[in-house]
């Protein structure tokens, strides 16, 4: 009888094993990490530069996360939520990763985050700023190397507060577009001349520009990522609006799009958490090595990718290589004690960075080519608007 009971217990333990899944990998001496980026399609450029930053950090770490042998897997969401889900599934079940970094778009993050967190896989967003994961859905396994959608426009609103009057708001008609507008108006308290939500993916803005010119606002604030922003700025210049109504942007102008804009970006003001002109050694090394490896200037998105790999390394080192000690890994990552090109930052209770935001301007360098300089620090140690809704405390 006793033996039979023991057999049942053993059988039960065996059956439970794959469900909990921890004991067998306790002696794991290999870190498995995945980069799940939106790499293909027209908008694949965002994912590509994040991945480049991530891989540069792996180079700097000698290819080893936390000093352990590291298996690195790349997967492509194609910027589609359904494909993202499949790929996340593959990373977790087939590749058995401990960490996943990546994700460009909020809607993709919303589709994949649960799989990672439910399986106790650390997920580090290298871009997607879906704010719910900072608020009531905050999670011990989720970290951000980027920002919330509304953090950057908040900085732009703060920079313009008192500086201009009567701002026209222009953003695509989807969740992130609305987040950006509400972030901006959280800190800009002046008059709003009007708001236009245009179709996501729109490429002709002549009608909007005519309407804005007729309304004679003091300034424009726009969020228009990717091709939309490039088309908008080109047409804004062509319509001669740059002579009368200044345009301020978030996620439109960066080193990512500078080549495509050419000289038409000169004079543009925008906000970002990254000061590319900073002379802190981590930033100088980052820019130099990135240029050496990829033959171009890094973007703010590359910084986000870079830091994600450093955070993984930090976590594994804090756990002294014990990959099943998730609490120690988490405690390590929470210190944010990494050499980030953005300078020092801390994590808030919701694992969103408490960081500086800068006002940057595009100017002509000595050869007349556009380059980005930092004009001022808008926020020091800025906290996002959602951390009070997060129940996590540490």
């Amino acid at each position, binding site marked *: 009888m006793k033996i039979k009971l023991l057999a049942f217990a053993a059988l039960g333990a065996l059956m439970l094993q794959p469900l909990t899944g921890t004991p067998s990998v306790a002696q794991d001496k290999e870190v498995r990490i995945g980069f799940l980026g939106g790499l*293909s399609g027209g908008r694949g450029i965002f994912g590509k530069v994040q991945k480049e930053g991530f891989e540069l950090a792996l180079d700097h770490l000698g290819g080893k996360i936390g000093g352990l042998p590291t298996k690195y897997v790349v997967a492509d969401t194609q910027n589609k939520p359904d494909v993202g889900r499949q790929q996340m599934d593959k990373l977790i079940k087939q590749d058995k990763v401990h960490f996943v970094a990546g994700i460009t778009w909020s809607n993709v993050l919303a589709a994949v985050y649960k799989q990672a967190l439910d399986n106790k896989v650390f997920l580090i967003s290298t871009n997607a700023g879906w704010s719910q994961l900072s608020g009531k859905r905050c999670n011990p396994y989720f970290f951000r190397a980027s920002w919330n959608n509304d953090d950057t426009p908040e900085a732009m609103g703060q920079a313009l507060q008192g500086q201009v009057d009567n701002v026209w708001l222009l953003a695509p008609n989807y969740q992130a577009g609305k987040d950006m507008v509400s972030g901006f108006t959280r800190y800009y308290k002046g008059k709003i001349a009007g708001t236009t939500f245009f179709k996501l993916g729109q*490429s*002709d803005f002549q*009608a909007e520009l005519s309407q804005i010119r007729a309304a004679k606002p003091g300034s424009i604030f726009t969020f228009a990522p990717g091709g939309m922003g490039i088309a908008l700025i080109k047409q804004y210049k062509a319509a001669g609006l740059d002579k009368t109504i200044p345009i301020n942007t978030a996620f439109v102008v960066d080193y990512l799009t500078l080549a495509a804009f050419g*000289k038409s970006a000169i004079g543009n003001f925008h906000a970002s958490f990254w000061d590319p002109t900073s002379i802190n050694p981590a930033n100088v090394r980052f820019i130099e090595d990135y240029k050496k490896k990829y033959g171009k200037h890094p973007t703010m998105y590359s910084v986000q990718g870079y830091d994600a790999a450093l955070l993984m390394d930090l976590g594994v080192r804090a756990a002294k290589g014990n990959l099943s000690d998730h609490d120690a890994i988490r405690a390590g990552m929470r210190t944010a004690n990494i050499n980030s090109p953005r300078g020092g930052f801390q994590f808030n209770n919701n694992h969103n960075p408490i960081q500086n935001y800068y006002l940057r301007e595009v100017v002509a360098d000595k050869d007349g080519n556009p380059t980005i300089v930092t004009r001022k620090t808008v926020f020091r140690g800025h906290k996002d608007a959602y951390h009070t809704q997060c129940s996590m405390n540490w």
Partner: protein
Amino acid sequence: MSTLLVLEQTLNGIQFGVFLFLISAGLTLVLGIMNVVNLAHGALFMMGAYFASTFVAWTGSFFIAFLLIIPSSVILGIIIEMLTLRPLYLRDHMDQVLATFGLILFFNEGVKLVWGVDPQPMPTPELFAGNVEIFPDAPYPVFRLFIIGVGLLVAAVIYFLIARTKVGMLIRAGASNTQMIRAMGVNIRFLNTFVFGLGAFFAGLAGLMAAPIISVESGMGDEMLILAFVVIVIGGIGSVRGALVASVIIGVFEVVGRSMLPIAMQKIFPLEIAQTVGPALASMLIYILMAGVLFFKPQGLFPARTG
């Protein structure tokens, strides 16, 4: 909204319409004459923009880029026709749709292998970079007027070619009775290749004209393809005249609707709702128009095959 702004928006609409015509002219030719559903038309448009960006980078001249676009887009069109479409002429439309859809995927990924994922630079040509004041205090970009000019020129050239030349006569004959024209000893195979090359050229030209104002990147033709299909469905499949009229109607409808509708909505609904419903409804406008036209004239405004 002032009268002046309404006039300006109407001009914007006409300009957008002529731009749509540039894109859809080649598509309607190929569909109407060859009876081939060419989803790769948007890809040819994208290739035109990439070629333009490259040629301008090499030569620094928009005009030389134009001269180079002619052979490069025609040759690309001919290669596509010979390799993928020729075996499919006698097959079902669905096979053509599948094959040309494959071409979209091929070119969208192909440009990234050749040019990289970064959007390509394309400056506005110096000659057309300025503004003119058509309406007081509202400088209008000269390049947009140039687009209107090129679009009307293309319409005139196609009309002349189809209605007034010997090649045009053969094309019309081939469209109405392929068997008969073959029996008369005309090389229909060559004629098809010619028409497809012509369509590819118009797509490439549209790409060249679009490149200075929109973002030159992978997938840029996909959205345009949908609009081009709306144009030719409303205009009547195969009718160049229909494409021109439908383009301008759609252009004005879309632009005026897009700018007026959200304002009108704010008069009826509270701001919060108007800001959501307005843009959503505006983006559906042309499809509502299409449904309306199809209800009353299922063949489109200018049923084809009659000229």
